[in-house]
């Protein structure tokens, strides 16, 4: 069997990945390459500094945000992802450039449904050959967008939600293979497709930190054990934290704290939730903000407890995999454990409802010694790495290719 040629289409760059979607896409590309597939990767995304201030890949295309504010005549905020598919599909020059970059391919991996119009146009034009389609679902996008619209009080969003649902259903229906990250998403997608659906949960990459970086954080944070929340500015990450700790951070003692890392930090600090009990929250929250990988790794290695305060959003949480892999205390909402339910009985893992029970579980964990690391737990944690979680997807492509 000759090496399978795969074009991976994404909605964000994979060079220097930082948020969860980027990390997943980056690891999919690496996993495919690890199996000997010939991989080309191209992404189309709004040209905001979060992406464009960093190195981009050869086929990464920043799109002018002004052209992404409406979809089929419906204007709304926060729909750049939805609008980008139509924008690129209608741009003959960009399609031609993409075809030149990809060359003939056996597969297109469509990560998230946004670029389905591009896939359809490539199929019509025929320049890249008769390819098979993998639809990589990260979550049920309609539900997620609905929650975001509600959070940001977006009115008249129903036509857009209908459009997203149609896009998801068509992506699954037109695919030869579907990958979902949780069993729940798999069950949800079953009705949309005849194609095989493989479970490819989010995974974790090993991290290491230096003594210098760890000393730095010990000096900054002091000797008391602390909890760590690492997240991007994705709106459910903000609302999840605020909802999970209840009205404020009162359940933590005066010497306990949660360290916020990642771009979620500034959004929590500027939220009405934080401001209402500002001084109280300020005593129990340390805002570390966006950090380098090295600094973040040091914080992860020093954290006594990882908190996973998700209350909405689909898919599985990359940070859940990292937290479970750490072997430290983990306090998670049931929602944050989506896709990792089987790991809920690992030593030190507490799954509890958002609100005061969650906050009190964090406080209690900070008083306890670290959970023991028995061989069985270590073996189970090892299955959380990307190489394990994406194996079924690579196996399915190989099997499909052999069959064809």
């Amino acid at each position, binding site marked *: 069997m000759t090496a399978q040629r795969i074009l991976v289409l994404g909605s964000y760059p994979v060079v220097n990945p930082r948020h969860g979607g980027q990390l997943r896409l980056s690891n999919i590309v690496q996993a495919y390459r690890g199996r000997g597939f010939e991989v080309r990767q191209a992404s189309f995304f709004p040209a905001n500094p979060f992406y464009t201030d960093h190195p981009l890949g050869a086929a990464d295309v920043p799109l002018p945000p002004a052209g992404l504010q409406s979809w089929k005549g419906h204007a709304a905020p926060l729909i750049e992802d939805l609008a980008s598919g139509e924008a690129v599909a209608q741009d003959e020059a960009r399609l031609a450039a993409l075809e030149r970059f990809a060359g003939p391919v056996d597969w297109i991996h469509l990560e998230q449904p946004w670029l389905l119009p591009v896939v359809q146009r490539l199929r019509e034009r025929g320049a890249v050959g008769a390819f098979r389609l993998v639809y990589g679902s990260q979550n049920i996008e309609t539900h997620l967008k609905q929650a975001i619209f509600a959070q940001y009080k977006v009115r008249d969003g129903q036509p857009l939600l209908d459009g997203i649902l149609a896009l998801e259903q068509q992506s699954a229906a037109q695919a030869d293979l579907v990958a979902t990250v949780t069993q729940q998403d798999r069950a949800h997608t079953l009705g949309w497709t005849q194609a095989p659906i493989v479970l490819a949960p989010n995974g974790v990459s090993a991290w290491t930190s230096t003594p210098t970086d760890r000393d730095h954080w010990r000096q900054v944070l002091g000797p008391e054990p602390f909890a760590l929340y690492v997240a991007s500015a994705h709106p459910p990450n903000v609302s999840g934290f605020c909802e999970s700790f209840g009205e404020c951070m009162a359940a933590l003692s005066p*010497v306990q704290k949660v360290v916020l890392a990642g771009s979620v930090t500034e959004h929590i600090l500027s939220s009405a939730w934080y401001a209402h*009990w500002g001084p109280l929250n300020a005593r129990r929250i340390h805002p570390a903000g966006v950090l380098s990988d090295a600094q973040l790794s040091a914080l992860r290695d020093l954290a006594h407890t990882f908190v996973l305060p998700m209350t909405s959003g689909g898919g599985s949480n990359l940070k859940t995999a990292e937290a479970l892999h750490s072997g430290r205390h983990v306090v998670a909402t049931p929602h944050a454990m989506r896709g990792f339910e089987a790991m809920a009985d690992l030593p030190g893992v507490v799954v509890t409802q958002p609100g005061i029970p969650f906050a009190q579980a964090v406080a209690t964990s900070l008083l306890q010694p670290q959970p023991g690391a028995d061989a069985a737990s270590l073996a189970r944690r090892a299955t959380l790495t990307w190489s394990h979680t994406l194996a079924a997807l690579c196996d399915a492509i190989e099997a499909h290719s052999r069959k064809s």
Partner: protein
Amino acid sequence: MTEPHAQPAPLPAHRPAIWVHVSTLLNWTRPPVGIIRVEQEYCRWLLQHAETDGLAVRFCEWDRAANTFVEAARERVQAKLAPPAAAQPPAAYQRAAWKTRVKNLLRKAIPLLPAPWVPRLRDTAYRVLHHVLVARARLRSWMARTRVAPDRPVATPAPFGPGDRLVSLGLDWDYLDQKVLYQLKQRHGLRTTLICYDVIPALFPQLVVLPPGGFGAYLVDMAWCADEVLCISHHTRKDCEAVLSRLGAPVPPMHVIHLGSEVHASGEPARAPAGLAVGEGERPFVLFVSTIERRKNHEILYRAWTRLRDQGVVPHRLVFVGMQGWGVTDLLNDMRLDPRTQSDIVLLNHVSDAELDWLYRHAAFTVFPSLYEGWGLPLVESLARGKFCLASSAASLPEAGGPHAEYLDPWDLPAWVDRLGHYMAHPEEVEARNERIRREFRAPSWADTARQIHQVALAAGRGQP
């Protein structure tokens, strides 16, 4: 033969102590308010009684520079327990009198200004004044937190030891880093007794000047630091427990103490205040002693008086005694301009004890329509002076006044109009109530308050190893 090595003298055994945190008392320079009175009375009582419990009595204050407690000399505390010299009016009164003169001058100047200017100037002035008041409150709070007492002792941390107890009854939100107290408690096993006077900023943030976050931090950290919490009413205890539960903080054991309110003769003969007309032809008056601020609900009384006037009733006069606080600028303006009540409502400020004594003696009855109180000292003081009070049914007030006052929903205007009119028209009924109050009501004494505090402090942390 060599001399045997001298054995080091054994360290003296630690004698358990009861420490009283007196930063608020030592830094207080104005006439005592309720919180200061609680500190004073407990210290006074403790110096007389506590040694009999086998505990040493020691005092400590917060040292900002060292960020810890230091021991405070007993003499400094005793100096703060002496009654203030009666002849010297407090400096704050003198400053306030100066402000009143300026206000009066401005009032006289207003008619001389072009009419269109007046509302604009007035609005601007009130807006500026509001910002100044807010800024002043913040500045005072900051200064209290950062000020170092001029006679600050050398910063040797207070030598807390096993079995020691700490009682703190003052403005701990200004004079204490509770994170440090929490750490000291963990390190030394201090058994702490703290106090909750009310939870108003948490329940009614709209009724206080500053946002609730700072108070919330204090309240929650108090709950984390305290082995026992004193509350000044059952209602405050219930609300405090509810707020802490709601926020997810621990709820330590809470104990209700009642503040003393016995009336002592001022030593001066009672005399009528200068701002109130007295004499044969003057109408009786109803008395309301309280800072004039939104929470105290002067508004319902103003509205009730306008209704009485609209009904053709010639009501008693209404005397407000208290300084102007926050959020009443429009109300005071309405009262000043409303022709129906101009001759009815009298505002008195900077009233001396002798004048207050006269007002209580000559008032037809008193009123207290507050929207929320942690206890309700003015109501109890009215009863202690044998004077019937028509009070709000909110929060702790029914608990404070018991069967001796009558209670109305603070926002039920028709009820206030009805009952005020009734008691104005039936002085014999008021007198019968006064007679019963004089016969049956016993004001709690400060000695009892101190004794209750001490019993809780002795029991603090009983379950600890």
